[in-house]
């Protein structure tokens, strides 16, 4: 019996996974390997990059089994030394594309590497720090080339490499190599041959990083950049299953961002094959004997016709159909999708084709008989189903990976008593159900007819059993529960709705575009340049991103194909131009760059985009929202449509046929059609040639993190408050210190004014000492001078009119400087401090007393609220006047001890002296006429020069001091005398203003003492203290308490507190009215105090003699009341008492009773007292006080 196995060879290398360590030296490793289009693309890129000086970095992301490792081996062999491996590799490449082979050869010869090849560091990562992996790779590359690690004569990094290797291999406390060691080793290698580093399973490194293994995130990037110097190119390729982000999903934000940034500097390549490519792989796996070829051709032709008439355009080419025999065409159709969706891609595919477990094509072949004539046997979808379902416990057993698969599998399993034919057909239906998303490949009657001619009977049998249902809207038989929602109809309607929408709008709605980093430029300049992206139409007029926007430019992906590109808006074109571009004046706008990408074909993009849009629309339809089956189906279709769209976007905008241009006023500057972000790097080179390069990750960015913002605030505060201290007084290694080092110190902005002097801010300069060359190197690298000069120019222009700080920010953020928003405040502050004695700062138009930390905080947040004006040192008459003023006020030491004779310094001095002026002084008219006039002038002037040269002289009766040359001879003398008189007058007024409030209180004190008839405060407060307990009245008591208070150091404070108690307001807050009423009230209070004191003094003065005081109050019928105090000495008292007793005794018989006699006598005495008129009316308030004072009886 002849079986399929007899006429067919199945090649299987692809069926096992490649392994760097095992396969790199094997000459067979590439046998059976097929150079797919994706692989070719990578080969192309690596060789193209190797042609240039710099190398490159790629991260290849693809699922398990997509052939990434084999690609690594291919690169290894192709760029290796001459020999069989290289020959085979080149042959394979050339088979796929002769030009690609040509490029590899060119790259080899360009660097004289034909005879020895590149250094190839092929290495598979473990869960370990990247450094360890890389070291292993480098070591191996060296050994492969030289047989061992050569001595240092031949290989200068020899001992470095050996040592690092030894340290890493130590059984105990192994130490990983540092970044700089690895960079040094790599540099040494690159001085001999180009270096290609390929890391397989890079995901494991990332997992290690995720789990906290120490790792230097930037190692790979540094390695790739190490090639950009003097040596030969260094290229880095990493291979992993998921994107960096996905590995690091649950890592803290900072580390994830760091890695994302690293990945941003890699060119990302998605490594999956299209269905057609997969079919090509299938074809490569089979080799049929020559004898059977004609039969295959005939078989293929008839099937091709059948497929074509069934409307399956995907597979209608007899050659492909034939080369995939013994697979039935329907099997060939479904396999790519099946492997991608449910398996491990090519690995699964090849397991099925060539594996030696049961159910694979290779094992099945041995059991399928081949007749000499008639229809050729083939392996139909039912076998595919069996294999994938893992029947017999073998195969790829994917059940459980997909809900749909599970559902179908269990329905088939539960259906008992099916005939063979029914089983076969049901499995075919099942398989087609699994893969069908849309299109012609589905379980329709016509496709099933292809699988099993004459199957309609069987089909209706299955339908009757209820195992299979026909869904009319989809024209499809289904094993899985479908839905009654007519998805096709809904989708068609949705398509109709968006048919008229232009493509860029459709895309804009369904496909979010992440911003991209101009990777190469960013890495070279230590400054991340980010481009926003969107889809656009060629006839748009566009505005560049705003200067202070966080992105550095924009990419427009043009979806119209008539060749038109968007036009720059007028305002962008009028933003001005700058000179000094390294590439001449090719592009010199001051607006941020806009790059356009114009693909030559958007057919696929259009289809895919509209499909996604339509399906999203359908998914939101009300009837779909309530039908989970429909939702799931559409959801799946949408997912696959999205991935097609993804691919279509990549295809349209990443190929060489897409034209890239940098917009200018005309046809645009062509950019080299590039891969990844190369055109953006080129655009950034053109737009930002004068950008500083501040190597500080926290500062050199558009949006500071909250931690970064805090560190910068601390830095700015230190700049303002401790500008002359070494390192601004910083110690330690906080983030603000790192910012200081990178942004100020190494940039040469903060350095000694002269040798050995204190540091000051000033134009970028370096210290000259033994370390000069190192410092110079750093300063040159930071390249801050262009931005600094831009600030100086702006300051220069601010002599004539005020400069809004935001405008300065805009200038710095725009081309050609492109200074990152994080850095701008630091440099601007440095520049302001460098000229602190000349730059006036206005906030909301109001002149400010210099740069303070809090002002700086506001300026950082709202630069638009601030303006700057430059008061340069002046000359002539005004200069002379200024000198006189500065002299008179002793203003001489400015920053760094320079003599300051300028407007700003004098104004700031005056403003400083006026700052603490009391409210009273600000309002009072108790000032000399001159002082009043000076006070008005200071209040009214808003410009320093106007104040000094116009308002103040006029206030003091002098002519304004006009600008102009100094007069000569006697006129000069008289003028100088005028200036001196003016300065004296001004000084007198300032002194008067600052001391007037104090002297006013002094005057009050004098008045008080005079009213009290005393000469010293003690003479008042002492007696007052003795009275404190005698006074009950609230106000009087407070007054006496205040008088008695001896807490105060001097008369002024004492008087101020007394005055405060009287006025219920502090003197500094008084108005002149308050003063007047205090002046009136004070004598009254003192009079009362004096009387109190007198009474009290007599009371005490009598000494040992018994003493009594009486208060007599008499109320007149009119209601008025008079009071008389009577003090009675004991002997007087006795005398009167006797006389009165005698009088009462004699009157009593006449009047009636002694009691009655007493009353009448009292009334008479009272009348006498009233008539006598010397009763004191001491008023109701004092009344109560005296009641206590006198009320001992």
């Amino acid at each position, binding site marked *: 019996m002849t079986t399929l196995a007899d006429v067919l060879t199945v090649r299987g290398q692809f069926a096992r996974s490649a392994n760097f360590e095992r396969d790199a030296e094997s000459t067979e490793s590439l046998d059976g390997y097929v150079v797919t289009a994706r692989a070719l693309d990578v080969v192309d890129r690596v060789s193209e990059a190797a042609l240039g000086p710099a190398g490159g970095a790629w991260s290849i992301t693809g699922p398990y089994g997509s052939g990434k490792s084999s690609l690594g081996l291919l690169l290894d062999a192709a760029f290796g030394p001459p020999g069989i491996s290289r020959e085979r590799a080149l042959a394979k490449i050339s088979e796929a594309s002769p030009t690609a082979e040509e490029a590899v050869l060119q790259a080899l010869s360009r660097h004289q590497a034909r005879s020895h090849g590149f250094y190839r560091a092929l290495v598979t990562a473990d869960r370990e720090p990247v450094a360890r992996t890389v070291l292993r790779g480098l070591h191996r590359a060296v050994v492969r080339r030289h047989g061992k690690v050569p001595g240092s004569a031949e290989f200068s990094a020899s001992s470095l490499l050996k040592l690092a290797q030894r340290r890493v291999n130590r059984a105990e406390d192994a130490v990983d190599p540092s970044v700089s060691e690895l960079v040094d080793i790599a540099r040494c290698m690159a001085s001999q041959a180009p270096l290609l580093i390929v890391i397989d399973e890079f995901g494991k490194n990332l997992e290690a990083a995720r789990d906290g293994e120490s790792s230097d995130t930037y190692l790979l990037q540094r390695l790739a950049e190490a090639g950009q110097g003097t040596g030969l190119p260094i290229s880095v390729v990493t291979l992993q299953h998921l994107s960096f982000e996905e590995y690091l999903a649950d890592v803290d934000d900072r580390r994830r961002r760091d890695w994302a940034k690293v990945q941003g500097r890699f060119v990302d390549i998605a490594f999956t094959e299209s269905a057609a490519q997969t079919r090509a792989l299938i074809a490569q796996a089979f080799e049929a004997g020559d004898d059977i070829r004609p039969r295959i051709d005939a078989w293929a032709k008839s099937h091709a016709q059948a497929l074509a008439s069934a409307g399956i355009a995907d597979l209608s080419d007899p050659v492909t159909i034939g080369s995939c025999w013994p697979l039935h065409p329907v099997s060939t159709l479904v396999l790519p999708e099946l492997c991608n969706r449910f398996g491990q891609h090519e690995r699964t595919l090849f397991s099925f084709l060539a594996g030696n477990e049961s159910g694979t094509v290779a094992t099945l072949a041995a059991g399928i008989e081949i007749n000499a004539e008639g229809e050729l046997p083939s392996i139909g979808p039912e076998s595919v189903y069996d294999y994938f379902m893992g029947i017999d416990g073998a195969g790829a057993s994917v059940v459980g990976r997909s809900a749909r698969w599970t559902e179908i599998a269990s329905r088939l399993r539960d259906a008992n008593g099916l005939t063979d034919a029914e089983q076969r057909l049901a499995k075919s239906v099942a398989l087609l159900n699994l893969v069908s998303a849309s299109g012609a490949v589905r379980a329709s009657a016509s496709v099933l007819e292809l699988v099993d001619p004459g199957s309609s009977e069987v089909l209706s049998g299955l339908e009757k059993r209820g195992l299979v249902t026909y869904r009319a809207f989809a024209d499809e038989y289904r094993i899985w529960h479908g839905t009654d929602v007519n998805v096709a109809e809904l989708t068609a309607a949705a398509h109709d709705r968006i048919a008229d929408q232009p493509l860029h709008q459709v895309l804009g709605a369904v496909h979010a575009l992440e911003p991209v980093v101009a990777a190469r430029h960013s890495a070279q300049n230590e400054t991340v340049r980010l481009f926003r992206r969107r889809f656009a139409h060629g006839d748009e007029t566009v505005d560049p991103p705003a200067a202070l926007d966080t992105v550095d430019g924009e990419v427009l992906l043009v979806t119209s194909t008539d060749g038109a590109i968007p036009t720059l808006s007028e305002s962008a074109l009028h933003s001005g131009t700058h000179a000094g571009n390294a590439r001449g004046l090719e592009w010199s706008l001051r607006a941020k760059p806009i790059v356009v990408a114009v693909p030559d074909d958007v057919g696929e993009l259009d289809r895919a985009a509209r499909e996604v849009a339509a399906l999203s629309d359908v998914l939101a339809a009300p009837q779909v929202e309530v039908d989970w089956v429909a939702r799931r189906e559409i959801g799946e279709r949408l997912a696959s449509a999205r991935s097609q769209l993804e691919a279509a976007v990549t295809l349209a905008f990443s190929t060489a046929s897409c034209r890239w241009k940098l917009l200018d006023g005309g046809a645009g500057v062509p950019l080299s059609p590039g891969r990844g972000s190369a055109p953006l790097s080129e655009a950034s080179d053109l737009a930002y040639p004068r950008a500083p390069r501040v190597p500080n990750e926290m500062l050199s960015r558009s949006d500071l993190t909250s931690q970064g913002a805090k560190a910068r605030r601390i830095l700015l505060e230190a700049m303002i408050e401790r500008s002359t201290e070494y390192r601004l007084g910083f110690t330690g290694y906080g983030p603000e210190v790192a910012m200081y080092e990178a942004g100020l110190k190494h940039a040469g902005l903060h350095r000694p004014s002269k040798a050995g002097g204190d540091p000051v801010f000033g134009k970028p300069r370096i210290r000259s000492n033994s370390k000069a060359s190192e410092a110079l190197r750093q300063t040159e690298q930071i390249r801050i001078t262009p931005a600094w000069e831009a600030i100086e120019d702006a300051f220069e222009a601010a002599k004539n009119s005020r400069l809004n700080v935001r405008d300065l920010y805009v200038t710095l953020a725009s081309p050609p400087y492109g200074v990152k928003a994080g850095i701008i405040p630091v440099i601007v502050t440095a520049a302001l401090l460098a000229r602190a004695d000349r730059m006036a700062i206005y*906030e909301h138009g*109001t002149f400010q007393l210099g740069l303070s*930390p809090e002002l700086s905080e*506001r300026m950082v947040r709202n630069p638009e609220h601030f303006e700057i004006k430059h008061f340069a040192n002046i000359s002539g008459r005004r200069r002379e006047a200024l000198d006189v003023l500065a002299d008179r006020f002793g203003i001489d030491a400015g920053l760094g001890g320079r003599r300051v004779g300028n407007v700003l310094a004098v104004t700031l001095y005056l403003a400083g002296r006026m700052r603490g002026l009391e409210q009273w002084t600000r309002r009072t008219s108790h000032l000399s006429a001159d002082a009043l006039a000076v006070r008005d002038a200071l209040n009214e002037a808003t410009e320093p020069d106007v104040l000094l040269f116009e308002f103040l002289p006029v206030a003091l009766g002098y002519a304004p001091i006009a600008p102009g040359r100094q007069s000569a001879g006697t006129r000069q003398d008289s003028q100088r005398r005028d200036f001196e008189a003016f300065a004296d007058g001004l000084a007198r007024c300032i002194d008067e203003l600052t001391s007037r409030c104090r002297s006013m209180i002094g005057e009050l004190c004098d008045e008080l003492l005079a009213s009290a008839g005393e000469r010293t405060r003690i003479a008042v407060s002492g007696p007052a203290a003795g009275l404190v307990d005698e006074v009950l009245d*609230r106000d009087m008591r*407070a007054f006496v308490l205040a008088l008695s208070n001896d807490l105060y150091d001097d008369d002024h404070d004492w008087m*101020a507190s007394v005055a405060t*108690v009287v006025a219920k307001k*502090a003197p500094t807050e008084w108005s002149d009215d308050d003063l007047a009423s205090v002046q009136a009230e004070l004598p009254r209070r003192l009079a009362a105090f004096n009387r109190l004191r007198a009474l009290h003094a007599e009371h005490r003065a009598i000494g040992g003699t018994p003493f009594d005081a009486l208060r007599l109050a008499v109320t007149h019928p009119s209601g008025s009341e008079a009071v008389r105090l009577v003090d009675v000495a004991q002997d007087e008292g006795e005398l009167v008492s006797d006389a009165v007793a005698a009088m009462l005794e004699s009157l009593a018989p006449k009047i009636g009773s002694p009691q009655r006699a007493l009353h009448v006598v009292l009334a008479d005495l009272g009348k006498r007292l009233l008539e006598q008129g010397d009763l004191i009316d001491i008023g109701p308030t004092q009344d109560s006080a005296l009641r206590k004072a006198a009320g001992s009886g």
Partner: protein
Amino acid sequence: MADQTRHICGISGGKDSSALALYLRDRVPEMEYFFCDTGAELPETYEFLTRLEVILGKPIARLNSERGFDHWFEVFRGALPSPQMRWCTKVMKIKPIEAWIGDEPAISYVAIRADEANRKGYISTKPNIESRFPFVEDGIDHDGVMKILDDAGIGLPDYYEWRTRSGCYFCFYQRKAEWVGLAERHPELYERAIAIEQKVLLDAGVDGDADFSERAMTGRQYTWSGGETLVQLRTRRQEILDKHEAAMQRTRRARDSVPVLAVLSEALGDDGDDFDACTVCAL
């Protein structure tokens, strides 16, 4: 060795803390007085503080004077403080106080009266700060406080005529009747408050206002006084005053011969218990 412990007494501009300062004037000679200046206190408060300062014969340290409300309003670009986002107290009071106190041991004297011993004042959680309550210890109650103020001849801050506590003129904890009081006593401050509510700082400089209204979130605007803007509140002035007057009457009837201040406090529902609202700001 000299005792390194600092003695500090915070002054809010209200009667209790002022009385405490006066009370401790002779008792704790090394006392340091401080006041957290938001730059947005009532003019009455500032005036009262200088009064107090003169009588104490010692300066009251003004904390935070460089970065008042206007500063933060600009730095936060018009973000309003509110009970939910009370950045005002945090950045203008608590942080400056803690920075000023530092890490040396300190004793903080808190003006909680004997008759409100269960009220919470701002009691720092910093471990180096010990709190003391002299009024509670010495049994000094409301009347005791008034006596201290009378004896010092300092009186009450004038705002007690229409408002029960110190604090920012626009404080969102004030009652509607107090807002009306502000509108009557300080129309210009009321205007400023209206503007601030709309994220505009009036007359920030000679160029005019600092306007952040464009940054305001569209949709419902946050209002300081529940349910209405300050502009709307002002139009209901009479209604609010009538209600307030009725509440005052009720209180007066309920208790004979109580001082105006007590009536005001009670009518405004400010009986000490719900005072937690602004313990740092109003003590």
